[in-house]
């Protein structure tokens, strides 16, 4: 199959590549750019472990084809910590004991980030809707909700 050229920005870095058009964004991130912080849990958009930001919106990277990300800006878990400074959400996940096995955590954090970018002061119900596409088998979700609440701007 003919390769296509895509240009995009990943974690603030300009990227231009020739890729197989059947490749998913998840494969691009993990296998080509070696950004393995984004996880693969089901490959069908059910678990949310591969959630990244695409132009500020949370997407399941396993469901996005590379052609769709041409000219887009992608942010992954690797860019959440800036200059050695944890994002407020990350800090809050530690403080609220919202991390156990950690496999859903990058996706969970990126969904939460997308939510707070759009709605800096979400209610508990809005937080739940914002994270409803992310499965976690460890926590029972309570501490994750608390962690997002703990990162809300107005509470600081």
């Amino acid at each position, binding site marked *: 199959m003919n390769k296509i050229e895509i240009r995009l920005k990943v974690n603030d870095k300009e990227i231009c590549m020739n890729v197989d058009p059947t490749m998913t964004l998840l494969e691009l991130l993990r296998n080509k750019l070696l950004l393995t912080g984004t996880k693969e849990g089901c490959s069908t958009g059910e678990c949310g472990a591969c959630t990244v930001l695409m132009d500020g919106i949370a997407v399941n990277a396993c469901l996005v084809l590379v052609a769709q990300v041409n000219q887009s800006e992608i942010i992954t878990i690797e860019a959440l910590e800036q200059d050695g400074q944890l994002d407020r959400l990350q800090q809050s996940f530690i403080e609220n004991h919202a991390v156990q*096995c950690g496999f859903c955590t990058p996706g969970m954090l990126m969904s939460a980030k997308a939510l707070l970018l759009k709605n800096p002061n979400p209610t508990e119900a809005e937080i739940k809707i914002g994270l409803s596409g992310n499965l976690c088998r460890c926590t029972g979700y*309570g501490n994750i909700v608390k962690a997002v609440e703990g990162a809300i701007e107005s509470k600081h």
Partner: protein
Amino acid sequence: MAKRKSVDRQDAYAKITGKAKYVNDLFFPGMLYVQTVRIPVAHARIKKIDGTEALQLNGVVGVFTAQDVPGINQRPKDRPVLAAHETKYAGDGVAIVVAETKEQAILGAKLVRIDFEELPYVMNPEDALKEGAPILHGETNFAASHQAIKGNVEAGFVEADLIIEREYTTQRAMHSAIEPDGAIAIPEANGILLYCPGKGPFNIKRAVASHCGLHENQVRVIQPALGGVFGGKDSDINVIGARVTMAAMLTNRPCKMIWSREEVLEEGTKRHPFKLHYKVGAKRDGKITAMEINGLADVGAYLTKSAATVWRATVEATGPYNIENIFTRIEGAFTNNTVSDAVRGFGSPQVDFASESLMNELAKELGLDPLKIRRINGFTEGSITATGQKLECVNLMACLDKLEETFPVNKKPSDVPVGKVRGRGISCIFRGEAMGAGFKEKDAAAVNFNVEKDGTIVVYSGITEQGQGGSNVVLQIISETMGVNIENIKMSPLDTAYVIDSGATVGSRGTITSGNAALVAANDAKMRIATVLAEMWKVNPEMIIFLDNRVFIEDQTHCLSFKDAVNLCYTVIPGVYGHGWWSLPPVWWDFDSNSGETYASFNYGACGAEVEIDLVSGKVEVTEVVAIHDVGRIINEEEAKAQIAGGVSMALGLALSETIATKNGRLVTTNFDKYLLQTIMDSPNITAIPLEAQPANNPLGVKGVSESSTATVSPAVFNAIENALGIRLRNLPADLESVLAAIETSERLGYLKGGGIHE
């Protein structure tokens, strides 16, 4: 001892930044990809496997079958690395394709031609034991049987004023870690290096060595980050580890296999479905006089640890009650279903669902309060179990007291919306801790550490960090015993080349074994340092205090920073380190007389659940769960709560939504679109209460915390459903179909469904 402060987890940083490396995040030069080939029927005789066409595909390096397995492919009744002559369920692997890329391996697997003959299959354990059923292993499908007999059950029923008989069933469910299973094998000069996430790295080493014809010291397992276990990453990971190892040995290149989610569901092990028949007799005042339990578990296609699962279920089947006359027999049968194996709770959730549903049914028949019947019959200090074991450190009544205080079961629900009903239910549990006498190995763990010259510490523990926070417990105990900041202590990755075999991290044994071993190791290192300083300072070693990164004597006439003290020691003694072992007291079981000391200790718990049921759709929404668990002593309160809450969430899936379904011998629930885990939208308000009543009989006073909460929730939910609907459901789960069917049988509910208005 003062109550400990909750401590943040050291493993969290890597996990929140994407820096934690799980097995699928690892890549090695020249690495090949391995794909399993299966036969899509429940039972088949393999006539011929032809890899010619696959081998012609660009990138395919090898196609291997059972004939290529370098060691023992299969032990009797157990899972083979690859099925040789016959597949016994649709998930059985028969060949592997090894290729340069994952895509080529998947494509290659589709080109492997298999000539097979479909055989008759059996998917129900009752049918499996009938005359003429297709036999899976040897002469019979009979796989396991355990009994617990106490007193004279017939005489006990004669004494009873009331006898009731009920039957309960539990479904096939899955651990469903979000990380799919996988492994990487790297050939080295003297053996194999295996990156393999499993809860029993030493078991993996032994299994892979045996399957691949290697000595145990030729297999080195390094554990990457573990993306959840919940009882899984056990038998499956042994098979995966053996497949990548044989591929690496046969190609002499690193080989990786990561199961897709569909493969995890199709080949992966599941929770045993149980059918349990209970007969119970009681006096009018609520005192139980006799209980007879007959159960049958679906073992699936291979044995794995089913005998131990059935044994635990047999030991715990009555629930935490003083009963003079007991007969329990639980059996297991082979079927052509996916293999049943360990899942969080290991047999307890099945029997707790039945026995705790039964207690409510009995209470209702006797006109008693459900809490009262539990108080009348519940275990207290010195009670004798069904297996004749005298109990110590019994905290059941403390759990029930806390339940009464935090979850008044008879509280009338307020503000029930039109077309909905609400109800409340409770349950309780006793659960054996750690391996117990169902396994033969000595139940022990080691913790060792080196104190570096800069005063930092690196720790080696054989208990795995699988998300439960077990590593942090070890760091915390060393920190508080040595008086060293936890930031200065690091857990080394688990590598079987350096770490002492401490068994598998199962049975909620992690904190009990490695926590106490950490205490022994820390005291060992302290004594080493104190002996050196005592001689220099001309004081008794016992006078030396370790606190706040300093080492001193009380009047401060001698005081050193911990780092300087360690440096000084390095000039006098050959090294500064701590070695610690800790074992649980011995237990035993006599299979002939069906008696013994089953578990060294038991934990207790109580649960309350409130449900709101939509009468139109049948949807059960759990609005509140209170889960109280006797943990002996709390090490890290927030993490203990997190373990309990996680167990509750998993159990809500068991109660309401999760079922592995098959059609014509094949799985239909092949991904998370059909196998329904609890989402954040389903998650109720969970109040997790780790309770400190009497401490356990070990130096730290700790009990296990990770599993009991998976067992108490489903009966509490079903008791709440009965409270709401007035109808008893006895089959897990309470999905839309079964609840709606129950509602439709009730005239009263039809009336309420219409908003209380007659049409």
